[in-house]
């Protein structure tokens, strides 16, 4: 049958977007299907390997063993106390470094003289291995909570300063010059243009460095700790409790993911203008 002029041809409705188009789009449903697949495949492979493989459970405990271990940890070994103290250490170390890195990065990104004074130094220090600072931190700060927070600080601070400086430098010059031609003073430009303009990028920097702070948790809890998720992993290593090592790693990953999502939600709530379209 010849379709009436102007009627939609049949193939118009059937055509699906090409999955392999460069930067092409995928439907919401397909996106979640793929995401579920990506998460469940490794889990399935892990389970199959542990169940049917000939791998010694000391090397690779199955997912069920790990889940059971999390259960007993929660019931008998104060899992929540470990989670709480680890969260406290990470958040405290990260907050301390943010409190200093934000103003410092703002200065480095705004004034070339401050950049020349501080940036090469920061670049140098950030390449030093944080783990190697453990004995020094014990020597300088001692072995109480301050030392663990100090380790997280050392791990995140120097990177954070550089990222904040870069965020501030990315504020378009036109925005600054427009304020200058409107008669804004230097303080007004920093307060009313540079800061609000850089804010979304700064929140992203905070989110990313929070992730790094979590990766330094095990290092921090190497310092004479007797609690915490990182400490639990280190202790499980000593007793070859592979299932507990797995449990600790997975828990840190999950908590980190939750923090990350919280930051993303905050980003959407704080900067509606970034997401407003049309």
């Amino acid at each position, binding site marked *: 049958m010849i379709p009436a002029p102007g009627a939609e041809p049949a193939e118009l409705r059937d055509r699906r977007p090409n999955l392999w188009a460069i930067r092409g789009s995928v439907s919401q449903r397909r996106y979640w299907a793929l995401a579920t697949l990506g998460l469940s495949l490794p889990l399935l492979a892990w389970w199959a390997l542990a169940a049917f493989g000939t791998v010694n459970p000391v090397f690779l405990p199955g997912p069920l063993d790990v889940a059971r271990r999390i259960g007993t940890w929660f019931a008998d070994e104060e899992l929540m106390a470990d989670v709480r103290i680890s969260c406290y250490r990470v958040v405290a170390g990260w907050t301390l470094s943010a409190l200093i890195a934000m103003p410092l990065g703002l200065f480095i990104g705004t004034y070339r003289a401050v950049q020349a004074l501080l940036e090469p130094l920061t670049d140098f220090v950030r390449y030093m291995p944080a783990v190697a600072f453990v004995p020094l931190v014990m020597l300088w700060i001692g072995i109480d909570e301050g030392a663990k927070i100090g380790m997280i600080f050392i791990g995140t601070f120097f990177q954070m300063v550089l990222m904040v400086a870069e965020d501030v430098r990315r504020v378009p010059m036109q925005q600054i010059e427009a304020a200058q031609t*409107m008669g804004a003073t230097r303080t007004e430009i920093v307060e009313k243009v540079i800061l609000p*303009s850089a804010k979304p990028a700064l929140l992203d920097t905070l989110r990313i460095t929070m992730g790094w702070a979590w990766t330094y948790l095990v290092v921090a809890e190497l310092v004479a700790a007797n609690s915490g998720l990182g400490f639990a992993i280190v202790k499980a290593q000593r007793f070859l409790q592979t299932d507990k090592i797995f449990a600790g790693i997975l828990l840190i990953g999950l908590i980190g993911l939750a923090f990350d999502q919280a930051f993303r939600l905050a980003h959407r709530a704080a900067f509606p203008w970034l997401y407003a379209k049309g």
Partner: protein
Amino acid sequence: MPPGAIVCRSLWKIFEAGPSRVTALKDVTLNIADGEFVTLVGASGCGKSTLLRTLAGLEEPSAGELEVGGIPVTGPGVDRAMVFQNYSLYPWLTVTGNIKFTRQLTAHTRDRTSADVERAAGRADALLELMGLKAVAGAYPNQLSGGMQQRVAIARALMSRPRILLMDEPFGALDAQTREVMHDLILHVSELEQSTVVFVTHDVEEAIYLGRRVVLMAPRPGRIDSVYEVPLPARREQAMKLSSGFVRLKAAILKRIRETSGLKTDLELLQKLSQRAAS
């Protein structure tokens, strides 16, 4: 001297970056009358943007004198507002927020009385109306088209009633149709506000259509090459672009820009290359 008059006497601007020295402005002398609309054109690198930025106080001249309303320029001032090509709006503020931005600055709020505040609010409303932004007053800049964004930028610049409006290729990123609309809008606004306008563009047609005078600049070193009076009535209409006076002036300016740009298409070489490719 009236507050909107500009006097440049032997202005020089030299950019030094390590061993290289670029003379962006060489001995520029130019007088612009209060309320005049002057356009600056020229090949890229001719210093037209540098001259405008110097007038704005964003660049300091290396030598020479620059006076606005008889007072030497030492930096940016609220008497001179600038409209940039793009990216100068504040994306975190709504259209109204952008237009009222100057109200947050101490330079505009000294000695303020309630009558001042009221007048400012009225001014913002009037500008929204004038620039056709009423319907999008609460929108964010990234929700607007390029043309609408530039309307906001112009309204924001006009908010503090500047005597001088400096425009740096403000319509350079817009499509041809939107540009025509903006041309008539800016002519209307400049007549209404009676402000002096210095307008930089690389589009000769735009320069003639808008300007009472067209200042042609030449590159390497950046300098004023020639100045043309535009032989059109003060009130411009799109149809004038087809008049013989307009076309003749456009041809003359384009020819002069080609001569001064130092860029040439080597037709002979192109022919030789295509012959070689063919054989």
